[in-house]
């Protein structure tokens, strides 16, 4: 996180030294673009706050840890698709689940859908790319995540 700030600051400084007007224009563009999408972000935050309330860590652990592997994979990809979690929360959680005996393929389905499929980010994605493309991209991402989970299962010897 901090390196992003450092790099952004550095680039901004260099830009400013080269051309003051252009840099000011750039900041104006940033501001306008941010302002346009901000209401959609608030909508998304409202969804996130409710979904995270319905699916706290303990509930996720419960769902992923029980039952057959294949049902768990499906549940994991479902939960991963509808929730939104930064990586610094998701991977430690997965690490804990791993020590509790949750198979790699289930965690793969969970983390990959978490990163690639965004039902909660749908309002934002739609603003930029339109409803149809957003739906197609999310379905494709879901299928990729399932494929990756199956491959993970094969290579960790969890399927055969």
């Amino acid at each position, binding site marked *: 996180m901090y390196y*992003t700030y450092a790099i952004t600051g550095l680039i901004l400084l260099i830009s400013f030294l080269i051309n003051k007007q252009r840099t000011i*224009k750039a*900041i104006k563009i*940033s501001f306008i673009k941010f302002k346009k999408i901000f209401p959609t972000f608030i909508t998304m935050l409202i969804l996130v*706050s409710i979904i995270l309330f319905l699916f706290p860590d303990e509930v996720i652990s419960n769902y992923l840890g029980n039952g057959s592997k294949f049902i768990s994979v499906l549940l994991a990809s479902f939960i991963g698709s509808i929730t939104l979690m930064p990586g610094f929360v998701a991977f430690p959680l997965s690490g804990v689940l*791993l020590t509790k005996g949750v198979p790699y393929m289930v965690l793969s389905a969970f983390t*990959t859908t978490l990163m690639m499929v965004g039902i909660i980010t749908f309002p934002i994605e739609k603003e930029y790319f339109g409803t149809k493309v957003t739906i197609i991209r999310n379905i494709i991402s879901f299928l990729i995540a399932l494929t990756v989970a199956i491959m993970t299962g094969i290579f960790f010897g969890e399927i055969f």
Partner: protein
Amino acid sequence: MKKNIKIRIAYISIYFLFLAVSFVLRYNPGKEIGYNFVSFLLYMLKILPCAFILIGLFEVWVKKEVIEKHLGEESGIRGYAWVILLAGTIAGGLLVAFPIAYSLYNKGAKLSIVFTYIGAAAICRIPMTLYEASFMGVKFTMIRLLFSLPLVIITSILLEKYLSKRNYKMAEGK
């Protein structure tokens, strides 16, 4: 459009009213939702300003011809390599990837490259990948990358083919 704005104002007001009442009456589920909202808002306010400043600088400094040449119709395999590298170094995941992908598209990047960017930003950001490997093991992370990245590229190319047949254009002025 105006109707949409009214609906939005309505549900945002209801939501915050619900939070306010929950805090006054000490209604726990409502309080928890409120904390979730604040913690995610803070998280986003940490990444988004950087992302949007970079987008602004990109719009001002990077010439359309440069993007068209390296990420446009004539760019070959190299275009994908560039865009995956770009995705790997920018923090923030999907949320940040959408506006950046949109800017790339408007500067002349082709659709398959734009979708590859989004996919790669989701799965192979370098700092996150290292973090992932430290919790899940290198093997887990390698399997994920080796299978997902080629699939992202292939499906992006197919999606581009499908969409260009239908004259797809992204919305303007976002």
